[in-house]
Every structure is written in structure tokens, then in C-alpha cells.
């Protein structure tokens, strides 16, 4: 299977990654090779097989009681943000 430069651009957009023009053929080539490898899966007979999402079959994702378990540490958490003001995260304007 082979991916075109146009497909790579579209995937990069979905993945929110800006690619330089010279990177596009490089990813087209390597992703095509990866999907060549993935194509081996067609050999497996899976018509009546249930997909397996999780290795521990008997286990379910637990839900905890709807009670507050942690204290507000906004200031601590916001120390890792590059732009905050009055406790708010700043991003470029999104409303005209």
C-alpha cells in the first residue's frame, strides 16, 4: 500500500502537525512501508473473532463515588503553562 503526499498532508492536518514541504515525501515513504507491514494482518482469518481492546478480560473500568477527592491546585498546575492571566490560560483570539 502506498500513501500519496496529499494523503500525508490530510493526515498531518487531522493530527494537528505542521509539516515542512520536504518532510512530506519522507513520511509518505515510511508510512507506506509501515502499512506494507500491517498488510500482513490480512493473512489472519478473523471473521468470527471478537476484537480485543484490553488484555484483562474479566476486568471492568471502575467508577469512583462522585465525591471531591482533591484540593484546588490551580496555581501549581498553571506554573507549567506558557501564558496565563488571572488564573486563565491564554490562547490566540478565536472569536471575531
Amino acid at each position: 500500500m502506498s500513501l500519496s503526499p496529499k494523503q500525508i498532508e490530510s493526515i498531518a492536518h487531522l493530527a494537528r502537525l505542521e509539516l515542512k514541504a520536504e518532510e512530506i515525501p519522507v513520511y509518505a515513504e515510511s508510512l507506506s512501508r509501515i502499512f506494507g507491514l500491517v498488510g500482513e494482518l490480512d493473512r489472519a482469518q478473523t471473521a468470527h473473532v471478537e476484537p480485543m481492546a484490553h488484555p484483562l478480560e474479566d476486568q471492568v473500568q471502575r467508577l469512583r463515588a462522585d465525591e471531591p477527592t482533591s484540593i484546588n491546585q490551580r496555581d501549581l498546575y498553571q506554573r507549567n503553562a506558557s501564558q496565563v492571566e488571572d488564573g486563565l490560560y491564554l490562547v490566540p483570539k478565536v472569536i471575531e
Partner: protein
Amino acid sequence: MAEKTLAELAAGLKARQYSSVELTQAYLARIEQAQPALNALITVTAESALAAAAVADQRLAAGTAGPLTGVPIIHKDIFCTAGVRTTCASNMLSSFISPYDATVVTRLKDAGTVMLGKANMDEFAMGSSNETSFFGPVHNPWDAKVVPGGSSGGSAAAVAARLAPLATATDTGGSIRQPAALCGVTGIKPTYGRVSRYGMIAYASSLDQAGVITVSAEDAAMTLQAMAGFDPRDSTSADVPVPDYVAELATPLKGMRIGILKEFFGEGLAPEVEGLVREALATWQRLGATVKEISLPNLPLSVPTYYVVAPAECSSNLARFDGVRFGHRCENPKDLMDLYKRSRAEGFGPEVKRRIMTGTYVLSAGYYDAYYLKAQRVRALINEDFRRAFGEVDLLLSPTTPTVAFGLGEKTSDPITMYLNDIYTIGANLAGLPALSIPCGFARGLPVGVQLIGPHFAEGRLLAAAHGYQRETDWHLRAPAAWSQDFNPGTKAGAK
């Protein structure tokens, strides 16, 4: 001293032969000496290490110490450490100071271990050679021109060079076992859900598991004892009691049924590796194990299955890095889309981008069934193969890697060649099984590892088998000549 195992060092601390401060100083000096040559650590936390060691010494003096109190440790830089830079070896997190500790870090801190620093790794744990790190490659202590394996390459190299008696690590497709094999140390990946992943930066959530790299299986048992157990803060954490792994080491191996993984002794396996793995098998037979060849027909599809499932989960997990709340942010974004796209383009390296894009594609409309669901169905077949095998045998045995460590730069140009390096390790992740790698000899002067895989929650059985082998052999005690000099904690002449 550098030759000592964690168990021996812990005993020495108990007997007050040296203090934790002396031990910590000696290891910090070794790290300083080794860092230019090996690049095994991203961050060294000397000051807080000495403070923690002083506290450990008080506990040792007061008689309130546990089995690991005062023992120096290195954490893979994928584990969040409060107040300490946690980078995941990525530019994206190169200035991220974690506001909290991972549960693994908390538990090992509560057990009294002393953190020396954070280990280098492949970026976001995506790699098999430690060459994708933003902070540069790690060099193998056995030969600086070859890779240490990955993604826990820093952890494995650090233990091999005796920069710490143990290092935490994580394993999504072989990232503990493969570097342990290539560096000649012991590495265990526990059952999926056995160790909490709270505060462990996510790569592929249905596969990721935390474990440890040590010199011996006994050391791994002591560490896993402190790490394992239910954590309400990880929704995939298994609520299953933790057995006494150290007590289980004494389990006799007579009558243990070992299955040889037929599919992993064929094409692509280097003859010198096969020879050493078969010698290891003979040792277990002498110890009373019975051996039988077992075929898992779907196992050869592990690699293509993994390279759908893991990138899919990676593309979803890494969507959180948006340049807003934490992580790298580009300069002067012109709008929100530009902020996302450039922050991510600048923050992630090429292999991480490749996996995000692969995952985005397999999850996109029109391709989901053909790739993602198909891979999940094959995963079920592989899982069923293992389940059937464990009806016949207690453990499965294979080489850990097809060859010894390869040269730096040798496989970076072709992702497929790199991916195939994990061919023997990925199966255990897909089925969520515990597995370990221990050293079983040397080929071309480089270490070779043998892998044991067990049924869910059979860590104790795996460690007992490994311990039995290590009582008969000394491969695990061999350290690379350049890094095996003795050092004497507490003396000025120490830490040559």
C-alpha cells in the same frame, strides 16, 4: 561495591557497613564520571538525593527501616516526579516540572529509596535503541558504539554500568526486556495492571506497564514487592493481592514445565544467540524443569498488530499536548490552529510524529474497520494462542532479541528494521502477560538475554525460575570492564 546487588547493598546498609549518604555520594560520583560517555541520565538530583539519604540513615539508625531503605535508585524520565523536571525525553516537555509524583515514585519513596536522577529514554518511549531521545542517544556500557536498546535504554545502561543498583522502566512492546537483554541486566515487565500507571506518561494505554531493571531476579523481586498493588487512581489497576515475591524465589524448579516458543527459533535469529538461549534451557532442565516445544501460530503477526494498536492509542494520548496548558508552545501563533500545529511540530521528534500520523490514519473514517478493528481481532487470536499454551506449560521461553546490540545509527533510516527488533517481546504486551529477560551469556563481546513469559499474575513464578538460573550461573553479575571498578563509599579514594 559496584559489583554488589541491591540485596547485598540493602544488607550492608542494615549492618551499618556504610551509610546511605556514603552510598549515595559514591553513586553520584560514578554518575558524574559516566555521564559524558554514556548519557544515561537526563537529570541528576544530587542535592535532594543527599537529603533523602540523610533521612534514610535516620530510619536505619532508629530501626524503622524497610528492605529498600537507603538504596539509591534512578527513575525513568517517563515517571512524574514532584518538583523535578519530567521530560519523557521530548522537547515537548523539556521544561515541564511535574506538580505531583507518580504512584510508582511515591511507593518507592515511601519504601525509603533515594532518587539519584531521571534516566534517558526514547522520546515518549517510542523507540528500540534510545536514539529518538531529544537529549541525545544513550551509549551501551559494553561498547560505546552500539545502542543500549530502548525505550528504557538509560535505565538499562545505568544499571549495567552500576550507576545505581536499580532503575524503574516501562514496557509497551519490549521497552524493559529488550534493553535489559542488550545491556546484560535483569528486567521484568509485570502483568498489565499489576503496577499503577498513575503519573506514568501514557503512550499506548492498553499495553503500557511499569517494571524495573536490576542486576538480579532477587533484586527485582524486592523492588516489585514495593511497586506492585492496587491503586484507586489508575482505573486499569488490578485489584489483586500482591504475593510475597521474595518468599516465592525459593520455589523449587523441579517439575516446572517450560514451553519453547517454536515460532521464535526460526529465521532471523542469530545462531550465536540461539546457542546461548538453548544452553540456558539446558540449565533449567538440569534444575528439574521439563521442556516441550509449543507453537503459537498467530504470534508472528504480533509486530503488525502492535504497529496498528500502539500508534492508534498514541495518537489519542498525545492529543493532550496542545501548547496551551503545559508543554512546548510555539512563538507568535497567528491563530489557534497555528498554535496547535506549530507547537506540536516543534515539540515532537520524527518518530513520535510518525506514530501519531500512523495512528491518526488507522483511526480515521473509512479505515477504522480495516486496520484498527482488524488488529484488535488478530490481538484476540494471539491472546488465545497464549491462553492455550498456558494450559500445557507453566512458562514460555524464547530469546529476548534476535541479535546482540546493533550499532548506533545502523537502523535509524528504516523504521521497519527497527520495529522488527521487538519481534519476540511484543506478544506479551498484546496479551498483557508478565515477562522478564535475564542475561544468559555473551556473543561477540556483547550480552545476550533469554526471555521467560508467564500467565497473568505469575510474576513470582517467573522470578523464581530466573533466580534458580542465577544461582547456577553468574552472567548477571558480569559488569562491563570499563565500569566495573570497585568503589568504597565514605572514603575520599572511593568512586574512582
